């Protein structure tokens, strides 16, 4: 099998240019879909039979929570690729996922708390789902902290990659916590087998938001990947040539 396409990703100048070309292809559809999804979710969708208009926070909460898990999985996979194949570009992608994923985790926790106070009667409960999501935030912060604590980029890459891989165990725990244990958090309405437990006029904007948020995540990571590559390769000749041209 020809693996040159795979190794081309490992070339920092190639990945830098590829990311630059791709950013607008993700950013513009993301902006349009999020605008459409917000209009559909906040204006067009009918209120819920029990929660009234309060349910509309789902349009930000559920996509944020999905991306908090997706970003961590992507971070762990790219960190493992970087560790196994000694690919610096993969470590750069992993490092770029962390702050974006951490902010989506903060968004999921924050919107969940705002919804929880009127609906459940409390901002926070030490419940399996909520606690596991908080641990996810700490894993992101630990990863970011570990990277910035080690001066040598190669050692920082390897140490933080091991942390990212060890922490990936938390991803299925967050996802299945509501099914394995008694939890105050409701079971999944969309991300499950079988028919969604949410009516179509409410679900359509939510699916649009899921796609829009995922594209937004991709665009943000690509921008960060470019910055990360420039920072790492600041001594390299191709960067000097590009800047002085």
């Amino acid at each position: 099998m020809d693996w040159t396409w795979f190794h081309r990703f490992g070339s920092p100048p190639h990945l830098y240019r590829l990311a630059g070309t791709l950013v607008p292809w993700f950013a513009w559809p993301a902006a349009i879909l999020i605008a459409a999804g917000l209009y559909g979710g906040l204006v067009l969708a009918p209120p819920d039979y029990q929660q009234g208009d309060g349910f509309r926070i789902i349009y930000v909460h559920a996509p944020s929570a999905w991306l908090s898990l997706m970003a961590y999985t992507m971070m762990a996979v790219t960190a493992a690729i970087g560790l196994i194949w000694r690919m610096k570009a993969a470590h750069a992608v992993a490092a770029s996922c962390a702050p974006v994923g951490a902010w989506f985790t903060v968004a999921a926790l924050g919107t969940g708390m705002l919804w929880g106070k009127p609906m459940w009667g409390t901002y926070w409960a030490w419940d399996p789902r909520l606690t596991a999501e908080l641990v996810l935030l700490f894993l992101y912060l630990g990863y970011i902290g570990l990277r910035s604590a080690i001066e040598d980029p190669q050692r920082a890459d390897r140490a933080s990659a091991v942390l990212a891989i060890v922490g990936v165990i938390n991803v299925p725990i967050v996802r299945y916590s509501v099914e394995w244990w008694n939890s105050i958090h409701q079971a999944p309405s969309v991300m499950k087998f079988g028919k969604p437990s949410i009516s179509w006029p409410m679900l359509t904007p939510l699916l649009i938001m899921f796609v829009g948020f995922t594209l937004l995540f991709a665009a943000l990571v690509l921008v960060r990947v470019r910055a990360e590559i420039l920072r790492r390769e600041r001594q390299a000749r191709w960067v000097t040539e590009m800047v002085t041209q």
Partner: protein
Amino acid sequence: MTPRRRRLLLVIGILAGVGIAGVLALQAFRTNVMFFFDPTQVANGEAPAGERFRLGGMVEDGSVVRAPGSLEVRFVVTDFQRSVPVHYTGVLPDLFREGQGVVAHGRLGSDGVFTADEVLAKHDENYMPPEVSRSLKTPQPGTTAPPQG
């Protein structure tokens, strides 16, 4: 064995080790991770006697009795096998209603009445507009049994 292969096995080894440790730890903590006990577990004596714990289940239809002129309320929490009467004084969350999930935090008295100092509503995963909810409750002529919500 090439160094790359050794690193690949190392990563698989880390994942397997962490996975097994995680499963064992969660098995050991299973009862502690439980956010609440249901009435059957309470009836079987699995809930800690004389200590604060959380009781979760459905508010039985027609069981809510409010004392006039105060925030005192009595209701029955059921899991459709066993049920536990609950006594609570305070503000109830928006989603508290008969037939809905609830989590009460408090103590079980020797008389079998659970005295709660905090009551949280547990929402289910079903989202629908009000008119859909109404049509689910009133079966249409000519259709079969309404779907369970």
